[in-house]
């Protein structure tokens, strides 16, 4: 049975350095949750607290209904895949995978059966007697995964497990990990600094910045409704323009964008007169020749600075006064704008939000 994990006001200090701040998080049984954050934001530390390699400086943590802050790692029953795999170099594949069972003194027949199943699950049963250094990176990864799940852990932790793989293999392993998680219905906490991994794989994503949980949400809400500037710029590409809120009408408001144009945007709790950042995704911005009429509420004039042809789409950089905007346009045979072309960029009010 997969287990829930609840973190209550978890803190971690290293000396005066506050590395994990006020983690309040409930992870449901069978959920795939990702810690996403830039390097140094405290993801690994958070994982170490859950695994029991570090003791929290404050707060409580429940695995299922049991508090585990005082439980040593070897009694938590958690599986973990390490970034460098941490396969035991002096043991064969079978011995590595059997390790969690042998240290628990499981019966011989049980060990053999479970190891075989785990190896089959990761499709590595032909490599039983190899040593880790005789395997490729991707194969080592699979063995590390097999070792982490062989003893039916209540929770599976993965610390940037795909970081060391090349791109193709990474795509492939993403799908494999998702398949195995579904099949075993296991609770997973996955750590990455790669937003693509996070968006593709997770049920929910916990964005971490400077030791704080900034936003915990599923991929779509995270992408379309980021809660603040950090999330907006860290997850996907975004335009952030300085703006000031003028008038408010049920959730939306009229705004002055970059001090030069008027527009309409959704608000996230701002009041009149307050300044903030107008957030809009590049694929939600339309680009048209200067002077063309537009129905969109937000319109800015600018000059194309740069046009990158990417095959399925074109990525424009448009200078609008002091600001530059990124525009991504699907290539469906519409006119292409070369550098220095005067253009108009526009977007709808419900595609943009004012953030703090």
């Amino acid at each position: 049975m997969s287990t829930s994990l609840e973190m209550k006001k978890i803190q971690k200090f290293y000396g005066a350095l506050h590395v994990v701040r006020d983690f309040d998080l409930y992870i449901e049984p069978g959920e795939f949750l990702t810690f996403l954050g830039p390097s140094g934001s405290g993801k690994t530390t958070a994982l170490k607290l859950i695994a029991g390699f570090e003791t929290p400086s404050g707060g409580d943590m429940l695995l299922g209904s049991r508090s585990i802050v005082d439980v040593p790692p070897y009694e938590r029953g958690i599986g973990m895949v390490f970034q460098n795999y941490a396969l035991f170099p002096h043991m064969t594949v079978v011995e590595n995978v059997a390790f969690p069972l042998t240290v628990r003194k499981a019966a011989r027949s049980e060990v053999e059966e479970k190891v075989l199943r785990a190896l089959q699950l990761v499709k590595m049963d032909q490599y039983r007697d190899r040593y880790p250094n005789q395997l490729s990176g991707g194969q080592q990864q699979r063995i590390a995964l097999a070792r982490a799940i062989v003893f039916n852990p209540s929770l599976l932790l993965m610390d940037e497990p795909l970081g060391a793989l090349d791109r193709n293999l990474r795509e492939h392993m993403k799908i494999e990990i998702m398949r195995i998680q579904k099949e075993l219905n296991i609770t997973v906490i996955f750590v990455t600094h790669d937003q693509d991994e996070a968006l593709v794989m997770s049920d929910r994503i916990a964005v971490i910045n400077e030791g704080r949980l900034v936003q915990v949400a599923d991929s779509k809400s995270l992408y379309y409704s980021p809660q603040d500037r950090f999330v907006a710029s860290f997850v996907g590409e975004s335009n952030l323009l300085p703006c000031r809120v003028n008038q408010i009408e049920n959730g939306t408001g009229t705004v002055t964008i970059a001090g030069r144009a008027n527009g309409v945007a959704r608000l996230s709790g701002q009041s009149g007169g307050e300044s903030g950042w107008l957030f809009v995704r590049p694929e939600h911005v339309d680009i048209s020749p200067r002077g063309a009429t537009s129905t969109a509420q937000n319109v800015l004039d600018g000059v194309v600075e740069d046009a990158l042809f990417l095959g399925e789409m074109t990525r424009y950089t448009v200078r609008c006064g002091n600001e530059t905007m990124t525009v991504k346009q699907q290539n469906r045979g519409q006119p292409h704008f070369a550098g220095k072309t005067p253009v108009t960029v526009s977007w709808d009010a419900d595609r943009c939000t004012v953030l703090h």
Partner: protein
Amino acid sequence: MKDVGKDNNHMNTLLAKERAADPIIGNVARGQNFLNGLLANRRIRGAVVASPLLVLLVGFLIIPLSNIVWGSVEGTKLNFAHYARIFSDEINFNIMLHTLKIGLIVTVLSLGAAYPVAYLLTKMGSRAFSIVSVFILVPLFTAFLIRTYAWMIILGREGPINNALIWLGLVSEPLPLLNTTFAVIVGMVHVFIPMAIFTMYSSMARINHDFARAAQILGAKPVQAFVRVYLPMSLPGVFSAGILIFIVAIGFYITPALLGGPRDAMISQQIVTQMTTLLNFELSYASSVVLLLVTIATLFLASLFIPLEMIWSSATIEPSNRKISERSRLLSGAKRAFHPILSLFEAFAHVVTKRVLTQQSRWLWTYTTVILVFLTAPLIVVVLLSFSSSPFVVFPPPGFSLQWWERLANATDWHTSFLFSIQLGLVAALFATLIGTMGAFWLVRTTLPIKRPLFLFSLSPLMVPVVIIATSLYIFEARIGLLGSFAGLVIGHVLLSVPYVIVVMAAALRGFDRSLESAAAVHGARPLQVLRLVTLPILKPALWTGGLLAFLTSFDELLISIFLLGRQTSPLPVKFWGDIRFQLNPLLSTASTLIVALVTVSILTAQWIRLRHEQRTAISASK
């Protein structure tokens, strides 16, 4: 294919279903829980692991040394007369000066002879390297005593050198080569060259040859590339090797005593004589303290230029760009002043060395071969002599016979000495490995801020001249009633060999990937299981290396044994020492040959174990 897939799916569903049925968590024997619980506490673990080493170092090095210092001023009387005597008495003072002079000469000669070999070692392929290194390792680990004995034969009146000179008609009378300062220097240089090669090599191996290549691409002539790029980068290694040799040389006992004449006495002989013959303990204490102070002063001076631990274990030093200090700015100022001279020298050297350097490796190989011959020839002389048909030590032997081997086979006194040495070596190595490994764990993993001083402190038995350790332990063990016991002897040997274990284990532990331990722990291994199943097996080659070094150290140790032995059986070196001084006969060669053979076999075995382990566990191994 389809079938397999289906089978898989079936299995997986099973696996998924089953998780509810059998949680293995908590299904563990609770036997060692208490111990594991204790070990989980970092402080307690630190104390447990550190205490044997600290007890050994404080109890059997610091306290005995303090006794000596205290005794040299006659305790509370604070009588400095004995120091005054050392410096006012011309004989005593000259011995001091002579010691320093010999130390300096030997250091410079060994470094000069060893540098090109160390340089070539960094450029060799791995096959050539393992062959050449055996030729250096075997002399390195052959007892000082045996090597000195070989020189006694070679330089003797009827030795190969005198015989050759007479045969060539260059001299009519054998030259008095033995019992001269020359003999002392040759013998000591022979002892120190292997040490110099390995110490320099281990730091030179970190210098990337691409720097020098880059310099050449940028237009530097080979000699410029070497003098301006490679040489400066290798200087810290040379310097640390020099310090190591100097401090060992000034405390040297065996070689000067056997190869030198009456006027070649060095301070360690003086200390022994003062204590055992003149029975003037206070004077010998004072001499010890003076020797100790010279050593400390040397090390202090060295510490201004290099991190001290680099002398014994270059592996501990990260090649980092340390802050550019006042000193090096001073140095570069001096360099600028010398620049014109340097350029002139380079132009000259380029012309002279052009041929040599462009065919660099051939010349280096020739030179290295000469050095290897110099290092191994004495051992070969000893081996050949063991098959001599003559009852005397003459070289070349007049004929072949196995008589000396038969004699050795029947010499029960040698057998008991041999067995006792083995027994002593094994016990000492066992304790040294245990204490040293625990100490290394503590030294590497402690979070105490004084980590570095602690590491240096743990190497202190290598810094204090052996003669001082021997005499101070002698006095101390006599006082606590341990003198003459097997335990007392073992303690002395463990004290000397523990630093080697620490150096080896600390290097291995620093390179140890701690995420392996985390992985073991999170997957259910208790602290003791982690140690038994993961940490120790991976450290096995280092454990064997450390143990072997400890064994060889004990097997080779003379002074400590002489002082702490009491009425026990003589270990081999002591037996050897007694016989050499009594008379030189080929039986000694036979015994030496046996020991050289044993050393060679153990070195080859160690190399083989290391290679096999590396092949299996190296991350970089081919697919």
